Protein backbone atom coordinates (compact mmCIF):
# COMPACT_ATOMS: atom_id res chain seq x y z
CA UNK A 1 0.00 0.00 0.00
CA UNK A 2 1.39 3.32 -1.05
CA UNK A 3 0.88 6.97 -0.38
CA UNK A 4 1.26 8.55 -3.83
CA UNK A 5 0.64 12.18 -3.03
CA UNK A 6 0.03 14.48 -0.08
CA UNK A 7 -2.32 17.35 -0.88
CA UNK A 8 -3.22 20.37 1.22
CA UNK A 9 -4.85 23.77 0.99
CA UNK A 10 -5.78 26.81 3.00
CA UNK A 11 -9.31 28.18 2.55
CA UNK A 12 -9.67 30.20 -0.67
CA UNK A 13 -12.52 32.07 -2.29
CA UNK A 14 -13.97 30.58 -5.45
CA UNK A 15 -16.82 31.89 -7.54
CA UNK A 16 -19.55 29.54 -8.71
CA UNK A 17 -22.36 31.06 -10.82
CA UNK A 18 -21.58 34.46 -9.34
CA UNK A 19 -21.60 33.18 -5.73
CA UNK A 20 -18.40 33.47 -3.76
CA UNK A 21 -17.69 30.46 -1.57
CA UNK A 22 -14.81 29.94 0.83
CA UNK A 23 -13.53 26.42 0.48
CA UNK A 24 -10.47 24.24 0.97
CA UNK A 25 -11.47 21.57 -1.50
CA UNK A 26 -8.86 22.67 -4.07
CA UNK A 27 -6.01 20.67 -2.56
CA UNK A 28 -2.59 20.81 -4.19
CA UNK A 29 0.23 18.24 -4.00
CA UNK A 30 3.12 19.24 -1.76
CA UNK A 31 6.48 17.61 -1.18
CA UNK A 32 7.17 16.10 2.20
CA UNK A 33 8.02 15.30 4.80
CA UNK A 34 5.11 17.10 6.38
CA UNK A 35 4.02 17.40 9.99
CA UNK A 36 0.71 15.72 10.83
CA UNK A 37 -0.68 16.80 14.18
CA UNK A 38 -3.81 15.58 15.90
CA UNK A 39 -6.08 17.82 13.89
CA UNK A 40 -4.54 18.33 10.47
CA UNK A 41 -1.58 18.33 8.15
CA UNK A 42 0.75 21.31 8.15
CA UNK A 43 -0.56 23.76 5.53
CA UNK A 44 -4.03 22.28 5.46
CA UNK A 45 -7.01 24.02 6.98
CA UNK A 46 -10.73 23.57 6.46
CA UNK A 47 -13.00 26.45 5.56
CA UNK A 48 -16.12 24.86 7.00
CA UNK A 49 -15.01 23.68 10.45
CA UNK A 50 -18.50 22.52 11.38
CA UNK A 51 -18.74 19.88 8.69
CA UNK A 52 -15.12 19.18 7.87
CA UNK A 53 -13.01 20.10 10.87
CA UNK A 54 -13.71 17.31 13.37
CA UNK A 55 -10.83 15.23 14.74
CA UNK A 56 -12.21 12.11 13.09
CA UNK A 57 -11.68 13.94 9.79
CA UNK A 58 -8.06 14.94 10.33
CA UNK A 59 -7.00 13.27 7.08
CA UNK A 60 -9.12 12.38 4.08
CA UNK A 61 -7.76 9.56 1.90
CA UNK A 62 -8.84 8.74 -1.63
CA UNK A 63 -7.73 5.67 -3.64
CA UNK A 64 -5.97 6.48 -6.88
CA UNK A 65 -7.70 3.38 -8.32
CA UNK A 66 -10.88 5.47 -8.62
CA UNK A 67 -9.27 8.17 -10.74
CA UNK A 68 -9.68 6.05 -13.90
CA UNK A 69 -13.32 5.36 -13.05
CA UNK A 70 -14.21 9.03 -12.59
CA UNK A 71 -12.16 10.20 -15.56
CA UNK A 72 -14.23 7.87 -17.68
CA UNK A 73 -17.47 9.16 -16.16
CA UNK A 74 -16.41 12.76 -16.81
CA UNK A 75 -14.78 12.06 -20.17
CA UNK A 76 -11.39 13.47 -19.15
CA UNK A 77 -7.91 12.03 -18.71
CA UNK A 78 -6.14 14.50 -16.52
CA UNK A 79 -7.54 14.74 -13.00
CA UNK A 80 -4.63 15.99 -10.86
CA UNK A 81 -3.78 14.60 -7.41
CA UNK A 82 -6.13 16.23 -4.91
CA UNK A 83 -9.02 16.31 -7.40
CA UNK A 84 -11.38 14.81 -4.82
CA UNK A 85 -10.29 17.15 -2.05
CA UNK A 86 -8.22 14.36 -0.53
CA UNK A 87 -5.16 14.86 1.65
CA UNK A 88 -3.75 11.45 0.80
CA UNK A 89 -3.96 9.93 -2.67
CA UNK A 90 -3.39 6.23 -1.98
CA UNK A 91 -2.81 3.07 -3.95
CA UNK A 92 -3.23 -0.61 -3.17
CA UNK A 93 -6.38 -0.64 -1.09
CA UNK A 94 -9.92 0.66 -1.47
CA UNK A 95 -13.08 1.04 0.62
CA UNK A 96 -13.75 -2.67 0.07
CA UNK A 97 -10.53 -3.63 1.85
CA UNK A 98 -10.30 -0.97 4.50
CA UNK A 99 -12.19 -1.57 7.73
CA UNK A 100 -13.46 0.97 10.22
CA UNK A 101 -10.97 1.10 13.09
CA UNK A 102 -8.01 -0.14 11.02
CA UNK A 103 -4.76 1.43 12.16
CA UNK A 104 -2.14 2.44 9.59
CA UNK A 105 1.37 3.79 9.92
CA UNK A 106 2.47 6.54 7.58
CA UNK A 107 5.96 7.83 8.30
CA UNK A 108 6.05 7.78 12.09
CA UNK A 109 2.41 8.80 12.50
CA UNK A 110 -0.39 6.38 13.36
CA UNK A 111 -3.79 6.91 11.79
CA UNK A 112 -7.10 5.18 12.35
CA UNK A 113 -9.87 4.78 9.78
CA UNK A 114 -13.00 6.47 11.10
CA UNK A 115 -15.67 6.99 8.46
CA UNK A 116 -16.65 7.33 4.85
CA UNK A 117 -16.80 10.73 3.20
CA UNK A 118 -20.24 12.24 2.76
CA UNK A 119 -20.15 14.35 -0.40
CA UNK A 120 -21.20 17.98 0.00
CA UNK A 121 -22.58 20.62 -2.32
CA UNK A 122 -19.25 22.39 -2.75
CA UNK A 123 -17.77 19.13 -4.02
CA UNK A 124 -20.52 19.01 -6.68
CA UNK A 125 -19.73 22.63 -7.64
CA UNK A 126 -16.06 21.81 -8.01
CA UNK A 127 -16.90 18.81 -10.19
CA UNK A 128 -19.31 21.01 -12.25
CA UNK A 129 -22.00 18.34 -11.99
CA UNK A 130 -25.28 18.78 -10.12
CA UNK A 131 -25.79 15.02 -10.01
CA UNK A 132 -22.31 14.35 -8.67
CA UNK A 133 -23.37 14.01 -5.03
CA UNK A 134 -25.67 11.15 -5.98
CA UNK A 135 -23.18 9.57 -8.36
CA UNK A 136 -20.52 9.67 -5.69
CA UNK A 137 -22.77 8.11 -3.06
CA UNK A 138 -24.05 5.39 -5.35
CA UNK A 139 -20.54 4.49 -6.50
CA UNK A 140 -19.52 3.69 -2.89
CA UNK A 141 -16.13 5.11 -3.93
CA UNK A 142 -16.28 7.47 -1.00
CA UNK A 143 -12.70 7.39 0.19
CA UNK A 144 -12.32 7.47 3.95
CA UNK A 145 -11.45 9.72 6.84
CA UNK A 146 -8.80 8.99 9.41
CA UNK A 147 -8.10 10.31 12.88
CA UNK A 148 -4.59 10.68 14.22
CA UNK A 149 -3.68 8.31 17.05
CA UNK A 150 -0.06 9.44 17.10
CA UNK A 151 1.16 12.65 15.45
CA UNK A 152 4.33 12.53 13.37
CA UNK A 153 6.10 13.28 10.10
CA UNK A 154 4.48 11.86 6.97
CA UNK A 155 5.78 11.47 3.45
CA UNK A 156 4.93 9.63 0.26
CA UNK A 157 5.93 5.98 0.23
CA UNK A 158 4.69 2.90 1.99
CA UNK A 159 1.63 2.70 4.19
CA UNK A 160 1.69 -0.13 6.68
CA UNK A 161 -1.35 -1.82 8.19
CA UNK A 162 -0.63 -2.12 11.92
CA UNK A 163 -3.90 -3.45 13.25
CA UNK A 164 -7.22 -4.66 11.87
CA UNK A 165 -10.25 -6.48 13.19
CA UNK A 166 -11.80 -8.96 10.75
CA UNK A 167 -15.16 -8.55 12.46
CA UNK A 168 -15.27 -4.85 11.67
CA UNK A 169 -17.17 -3.52 8.68
CA UNK A 170 -15.45 -2.29 5.59
CA UNK A 171 -15.87 1.36 4.67
CA UNK A 172 -17.89 0.30 1.61
CA UNK A 173 -20.29 -1.83 3.71
CA UNK A 174 -20.86 1.01 6.14
CA UNK A 175 -21.36 3.48 3.28
CA UNK A 176 -23.97 1.24 1.69
CA UNK A 177 -25.91 1.06 4.96
CA UNK A 178 -25.45 4.71 5.91
CA UNK A 179 -26.69 6.00 2.55
CA UNK A 180 -29.72 3.72 2.62
CA UNK A 181 -30.59 3.45 6.31
CA UNK A 182 -34.23 2.41 5.90
CA UNK A 183 -33.21 -0.95 4.47
CA UNK A 184 -30.12 -1.44 6.62
CA UNK A 185 -31.20 -0.83 10.16
CA UNK A 186 -29.62 -4.01 11.47
CA UNK A 187 -26.31 -3.28 9.80
CA UNK A 188 -26.22 0.20 11.31
CA UNK A 189 -27.10 -1.26 14.68
CA UNK A 190 -24.25 -3.74 14.32
CA UNK A 191 -21.82 -1.02 13.27
CA UNK A 192 -22.25 0.59 16.69
CA UNK A 193 -20.74 -2.47 18.37
CA UNK A 194 -17.39 -1.88 16.67
CA UNK A 195 -14.81 -0.85 19.22
CA UNK A 196 -12.76 2.08 18.09
CA UNK A 197 -15.70 3.73 16.37
CA UNK A 198 -15.10 7.46 16.85
CA UNK A 199 -17.66 8.94 19.25
CA UNK A 200 -18.60 11.64 16.73
CA UNK A 201 -19.33 8.92 14.18
CA UNK A 202 -21.25 6.89 16.76
CA UNK A 203 -23.33 9.99 17.40
CA UNK A 204 -24.03 10.46 13.67
CA UNK A 205 -25.11 6.85 13.21
CA UNK A 206 -27.35 6.94 16.30
CA UNK A 207 -28.98 10.13 14.97
CA UNK A 208 -29.43 8.58 11.56
CA UNK A 209 -31.22 5.62 13.15
CA UNK A 210 -33.41 7.92 15.24
CA UNK A 211 -34.35 9.92 12.15
CA UNK A 212 -35.62 6.86 10.30
CA UNK A 213 -37.54 5.46 13.26
CA UNK A 214 -39.44 8.67 14.02
Amino acid at each position, binding site marked *: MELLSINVSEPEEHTFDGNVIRTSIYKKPVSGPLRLDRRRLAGDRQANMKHHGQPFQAVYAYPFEHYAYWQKVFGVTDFPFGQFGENFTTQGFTERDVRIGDIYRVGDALLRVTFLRIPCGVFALKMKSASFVNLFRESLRTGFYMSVLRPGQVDIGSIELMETNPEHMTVADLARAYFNPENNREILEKSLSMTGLA*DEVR*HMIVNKMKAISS
Partner: protein
Amino acid sequence: MMKLLSVNVSELKEININGKNHSTGIFKRPVTGKVNVLHDALDGDHSAEKYDYGGPTQAAYVYQYENYDYWREHLNADYYGPGFFGENFTVENMLDNRIRIGDIFRFGTAHFQVTKHRPPCKKLGHVAGDIGFIKKFMQAGRFGFYMRVLKQGEVMAGDEIELLQADPIGVTVEEYGMMLDVRKGDRLTLERALEIKDLEEAHRKRIEALLNKSS
Protein backbone atom coordinates in the same frame (compact mmCIF):
# COMPACT_ATOMS: atom_id res chain seq x y z
CA MET B 1 -18.38 -11.70 41.34
CA MET B 2 -19.33 -8.40 39.75
CA LYS B 3 -22.99 -7.68 40.19
CA LEU B 4 -25.54 -5.07 39.17
CA LEU B 5 -27.37 -4.26 42.40
CA SER B 6 -29.68 -1.53 41.17
CA VAL B 7 -30.73 0.25 37.97
CA ASN B 8 -31.57 3.91 38.56
CA VAL B 9 -33.20 6.56 36.38
CA SER B 10 -34.57 10.07 36.84
CA GLU B 11 -36.92 12.66 35.49
CA LEU B 12 -35.61 16.20 35.19
CA LYS B 13 -36.03 18.42 38.22
CA GLU B 14 -35.41 22.11 38.88
CA ILE B 15 -33.08 22.99 41.73
CA ASN B 16 -31.70 26.24 43.05
CA ILE B 17 -27.97 26.60 43.69
CA ASN B 18 -26.77 29.98 45.01
CA GLY B 19 -29.86 31.74 43.66
CA LYS B 20 -29.58 30.22 40.21
CA ASN B 21 -32.01 27.67 38.82
CA HIS B 22 -30.63 24.53 37.26
CA SER B 23 -32.34 21.65 35.60
CA THR B 24 -30.90 18.31 36.71
CA GLY B 25 -31.25 14.59 36.23
CA ILE B 26 -29.13 13.74 39.26
CA PHE B 27 -31.99 12.50 41.45
CA LYS B 28 -31.93 8.93 40.21
CA ARG B 29 -34.03 6.26 41.88
CA PRO B 30 -34.13 2.47 41.50
CA VAL B 31 -36.50 0.86 39.05
CA THR B 32 -37.52 -2.78 39.03
CA GLY B 33 -37.88 -5.09 36.09
CA LYS B 34 -36.07 -5.02 32.80
CA VAL B 35 -34.81 -1.68 31.52
CA ASN B 36 -33.90 -1.07 27.90
CA VAL B 37 -30.41 0.24 27.25
CA LEU B 38 -30.44 2.61 24.27
CA HIS B 39 -27.38 3.94 22.51
CA ASP B 40 -27.28 7.28 24.30
CA ALA B 41 -29.12 6.62 27.56
CA LEU B 42 -31.22 4.17 29.55
CA ASP B 43 -34.86 4.13 28.58
CA GLY B 44 -36.69 6.48 30.96
CA ASP B 45 -33.57 8.31 32.11
CA HIS B 46 -32.99 12.02 31.63
CA SER B 47 -29.90 14.21 31.73
CA ALA B 48 -30.23 17.95 31.87
CA GLU B 49 -27.18 18.97 29.92
CA LYS B 50 -27.03 16.67 26.95
CA TYR B 51 -23.65 17.95 25.96
CA ASP B 52 -22.07 17.41 29.36
CA TYR B 53 -24.07 14.46 30.55
CA GLY B 54 -25.39 12.02 28.06
CA GLY B 55 -24.46 11.38 24.50
CA PRO B 56 -22.32 8.46 23.48
CA THR B 57 -19.48 8.62 26.01
CA GLN B 58 -21.72 9.16 29.02
CA ALA B 59 -24.63 6.90 28.19
CA ALA B 60 -24.44 5.30 31.64
CA TYR B 61 -22.78 6.21 34.94
CA VAL B 62 -21.67 3.47 37.33
CA TYR B 63 -21.07 3.87 41.07
CA GLN B 64 -19.96 1.27 43.54
CA TYR B 65 -21.98 0.12 46.51
CA GLU B 66 -18.81 -0.27 48.58
CA ASN B 67 -18.37 3.50 48.41
CA TYR B 68 -21.71 4.07 50.12
CA ASP B 69 -20.13 2.75 53.33
CA TYR B 70 -17.09 4.93 52.81
CA TRP B 71 -19.10 8.12 52.38
CA ARG B 72 -21.77 7.44 55.00
CA GLU B 73 -20.05 9.40 57.80
CA HIS B 74 -19.51 12.40 55.49
CA LEU B 75 -23.12 12.70 54.48
CA ASN B 76 -26.37 13.54 56.14
CA ALA B 77 -29.08 13.10 53.56
CA ASP B 78 -32.78 12.26 53.69
CA TYR B 79 -32.33 9.65 51.00
CA TYR B 80 -29.11 7.65 50.97
CA GLY B 81 -29.70 4.69 48.71
CA PRO B 82 -29.00 3.52 45.16
CA GLY B 83 -28.92 6.45 42.73
CA PHE B 84 -27.81 8.92 45.40
CA PHE B 85 -24.62 9.75 43.51
CA GLY B 86 -26.58 10.14 40.28
CA GLU B 87 -25.52 6.72 39.04
CA ASN B 88 -27.53 4.64 36.61
CA PHE B 89 -25.97 1.44 37.84
CA THR B 90 -25.11 0.67 41.44
CA VAL B 91 -22.67 -2.23 41.33
CA GLU B 92 -20.44 -4.31 43.56
CA ASN B 93 -16.91 -5.64 43.06
CA MET B 94 -16.07 -3.06 40.41
CA LEU B 95 -13.98 -0.54 42.32
CA ASP B 96 -12.17 2.22 40.43
CA ASN B 97 -8.78 0.66 41.17
CA ARG B 98 -9.78 -2.58 39.37
CA ILE B 99 -11.55 -1.20 36.32
CA ARG B 100 -9.54 0.10 33.35
CA ILE B 101 -10.46 2.80 30.85
CA GLY B 102 -11.43 0.93 27.67
CA ASP B 103 -12.63 -2.28 29.41
CA ILE B 104 -15.69 -3.86 27.82
CA PHE B 105 -18.42 -5.39 29.99
CA ARG B 106 -21.69 -7.18 29.56
CA PHE B 107 -24.51 -6.10 31.88
CA GLY B 108 -27.58 -8.26 31.18
CA THR B 109 -27.68 -8.45 27.39
CA ALA B 110 -26.13 -5.00 26.80
CA HIS B 111 -22.43 -4.35 26.13
CA PHE B 112 -20.61 -1.29 27.44
CA GLN B 113 -17.13 0.21 27.27
CA VAL B 114 -15.65 2.25 30.11
CA THR B 115 -14.91 5.76 28.79
CA LYS B 116 -13.78 7.92 31.74
CA HIS B 117 -14.03 8.72 35.42
CA ARG B 118 -16.71 11.02 36.76
CA PRO B 119 -15.49 14.38 38.01
CA PRO B 120 -17.97 15.74 40.57
CA CYS B 121 -20.16 18.74 39.70
CA LYS B 122 -21.93 21.30 41.86
CA LYS B 123 -25.14 19.33 41.59
CA LEU B 124 -23.47 16.55 43.56
CA GLY B 125 -22.57 19.19 46.15
CA HIS B 126 -26.27 20.10 46.21
CA VAL B 127 -27.53 16.55 46.83
CA ALA B 128 -24.83 16.08 49.48
CA GLY B 129 -26.03 19.29 51.14
CA ASP B 130 -22.41 20.45 51.34
CA ILE B 131 -20.54 22.28 48.60
CA GLY B 132 -17.30 21.10 50.24
CA PHE B 133 -18.26 17.54 49.38
CA ILE B 134 -17.18 18.09 45.77
CA LYS B 135 -13.57 18.48 46.83
CA LYS B 136 -13.70 15.50 49.19
CA PHE B 137 -15.22 13.36 46.45
CA MET B 138 -12.52 14.37 44.01
CA GLN B 139 -9.61 13.77 46.34
CA ALA B 140 -10.85 10.40 47.55
CA GLY B 141 -10.42 9.03 44.04
CA ARG B 142 -13.74 7.18 44.28
CA PHE B 143 -15.12 8.62 41.07
CA GLY B 144 -17.19 5.87 39.56
CA PHE B 145 -17.11 5.77 35.78
CA TYR B 146 -19.00 6.50 32.59
CA MET B 147 -19.58 4.02 29.78
CA ARG B 148 -20.55 4.10 26.13
CA VAL B 149 -23.01 1.55 24.77
CA LEU B 150 -21.57 -0.92 22.27
CA LYS B 151 -24.64 -3.11 22.06
CA GLN B 152 -28.19 -2.27 23.07
CA GLY B 153 -29.98 -4.72 25.34
CA GLU B 154 -31.84 -5.19 28.60
CA VAL B 155 -30.54 -4.87 32.13
CA MET B 156 -32.14 -5.66 35.46
CA ALA B 157 -31.16 -5.35 39.10
CA GLY B 158 -29.48 -8.59 40.12
CA ASP B 159 -27.80 -9.24 36.76
CA GLU B 160 -24.29 -10.58 36.79
CA ILE B 161 -21.65 -8.47 35.08
CA GLU B 162 -19.05 -10.08 32.86
CA LEU B 163 -15.75 -8.68 31.63
CA LEU B 164 -15.67 -9.28 27.86
CA GLN B 165 -12.40 -7.55 27.03
CA ALA B 166 -9.75 -5.94 29.20
CA ASP B 167 -8.05 -2.86 27.85
CA PRO B 168 -4.40 -3.76 27.11
CA ILE B 169 -2.97 -0.47 28.37
CA GLY B 170 -4.45 -0.98 31.80
CA VAL B 171 -4.89 2.55 33.15
CA THR B 172 -7.41 2.19 35.98
CA VAL B 173 -10.31 4.58 36.50
CA GLU B 174 -8.68 5.67 39.75
CA GLU B 175 -5.31 6.43 38.12
CA TYR B 176 -7.03 8.17 35.25
CA GLY B 177 -9.22 10.43 37.38
CA MET B 178 -6.38 11.30 39.75
CA MET B 179 -4.12 12.09 36.79
CA LEU B 180 -6.63 14.36 35.06
CA ASP B 181 -8.28 16.14 37.97
CA VAL B 182 -6.13 15.80 41.08
CA ARG B 183 -2.41 15.31 40.35
CA LYS B 184 -2.28 17.07 37.07
CA GLY B 185 1.32 16.52 36.11
CA ASP B 186 1.84 12.77 36.39
CA ARG B 187 3.86 12.33 33.20
CA LEU B 188 4.16 8.57 33.18
CA THR B 189 0.42 7.99 33.54
CA LEU B 190 -0.35 10.73 31.01
CA GLU B 191 1.85 9.02 28.45
CA ARG B 192 0.32 5.62 29.15
CA ALA B 193 -3.17 7.07 28.92
CA LEU B 194 -2.45 8.50 25.46
CA GLU B 195 -1.90 4.92 24.28
CA ILE B 196 -5.50 3.98 25.11
CA LYS B 197 -7.02 3.65 21.68
CA ASP B 198 -10.65 4.34 22.47
CA LEU B 199 -10.06 7.48 24.47
CA GLU B 200 -12.67 10.21 24.23
CA GLU B 201 -11.40 12.88 21.85
CA ALA B 202 -11.81 15.79 24.25
CA HIS B 203 -9.80 13.88 26.86
CA ARG B 204 -7.04 13.09 24.40
CA LYS B 205 -6.70 16.83 23.90
CA ARG B 206 -6.65 17.51 27.63
CA ILE B 207 -4.00 14.86 28.22
CA GLU B 208 -1.82 16.27 25.45
CA ALA B 209 -2.19 19.76 26.87
CA LEU B 210 -1.13 18.51 30.34
CA LEU B 211 1.87 16.72 28.82
CA ASN B 212 2.94 19.83 26.95
CA LYS B 213 2.70 21.85 30.13
CA SER B 214 4.81 19.41 32.12
CA SER B 215 7.58 19.19 29.53
